[in-house]
């Protein structure tokens, strides 16, 4: 029983095997991809392992505090930012091995030519609550 974040990147991950960008796919290929993602989430809900899934718009801004009484400073987006997150899925599973297994399945979502994208997904454990028994 541990939660993991499966993180999908627009940029920053190593190149996928099937690396054709989505805007060059056919309508059917896009539909098949979306269907695969929805089915995957629905299946995880049925196995009792789904927590959350969200997608992010690629365009964002950088914001920081600029001192007392002043509005926050905004800047960006910066084209050179190396890491750009596309979205995530949160799962609650029995083991790290299971998290890796599920990430592998998610990475097999079909892309151009209906072939798996083999996309690199980042798997990150959540920091949990401390256990009751420590010694």
């Amino acid at each position, binding site marked *: *029983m541990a*939660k993991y974040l499966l993180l999908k990147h627009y940029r920053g991950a190593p190149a996928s095997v099937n690396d054709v960008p989505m805007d060059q796919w056919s309508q059917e290929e896009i539909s098949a991809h979306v269907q695969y993602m929805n089915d995957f989430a629905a299946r*995880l*809900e*049925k*196995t*009792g*392992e*789904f*927590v*959350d899934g969200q997608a992010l718009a690629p365009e964002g801004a950088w914001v920081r505090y600029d001192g007392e009484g002043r509005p926050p400073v905004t800047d960006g987006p910066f084209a050179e930012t190396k890491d750009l997150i596309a979205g995530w899925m949160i799962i*609650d*599973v*029995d083991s790290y091995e299971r998290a890796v297994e599920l990430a592998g399945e998610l990475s097999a979502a079909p892309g151009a030519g209906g072939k798996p994208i083999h996309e690199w997904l980042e798997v990150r*454990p959540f*920091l*949990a*609550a*401390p*256990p*009751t*028994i*420590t*010694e």
Partner: protein
Amino acid sequence: MQDALVEALRVWAADPPRDAKGWLVTVAWRKFLDATRADAARRRREDRVEEEPAPGPAPAVDDTLQLYFLCAHPSLTPASAVALTLRAVGGLTTRQIAEAYLVPEATMAQRISRAKRTVSGVRFDRPGDVATVLRVLYLVFNEGYSGDVDLAAEAIRLTRQLAARIDHPEVAGLLALMLLHQARRAARTASDGSLVPLAEQDRGRWDTALIAEGVGILQAALARDRLGEFQAQAAIAALHADAPAAEETDWVQIVEWYDELTRLTDSPVVRLNRAVAVGEADGPRAGLAALAALDASLPRHAAVAAYLHERDGDLATAARLYAEAAHKAPNLAERDHLTRQAARLNARRCR
């Protein structure tokens, strides 16, 4: 009979029978008749088992024991066994369990209904293994997070209920272990939520009634001379509870109990804890020597090494290891605690 138990799982939570045994016999007979009828009827009945029983207190009858075994059945994954136990034995609602484990209610509902499906074919031709039940209860207790539902308190309640129904020294051992840890719970966290290590806890805030109860249960269990890992863990907790001040802790005895525990479990985590105890009993050099024999990739290895190096006076190494341990910490409270340790040593060295 099996079908009757599944039926009990479904309806007892809302409507506990006055005569449980009679109820089971009647239902078992009815189920037998049902089973001879058409497939369609059977499908409908299976669908009914899927349905969510209404929340309510668990039935306080001896057949509860069968439910414990069913809900901790080895065919279930730990997460499923925990969820089913809290639902069917504990009588918590699916929403409460979902909130306690920070998952959506729909996910928890599916986890529970899958677990029910998994065990619906289980036959009780042999007595269940109490060790599987104890592992599930230990997991519930150790979850740590306490929201609206206090899982540690719930685990204690369920373990008490089990101990009243089954005479087994390890059940008593687990109950004692839980009580002894629960006794220190209030002193474990500062008002800002940060962890307070055992040595720095205000022992005046320990719950002496819980300690006395835990020690009493443990002593009765140990007297039966059938040692198991929970009794050994409880013995260590009892020795900590027994010390009026951290300096008065009987570390020599604690090391001996860790030796027993190593013999019983052969767990690397136990060996790591033993190295800490050796460091206290025989000095930090002895602790570091014990640690050197262990795999450095073990969780909390760096934290233990940092502590022992600090005790040995090597503050630079200790600070570096505390920072490394913070980086690897599995939870936020521990990470913050270890970061503070590193910062404390770094500040002292710079002065």
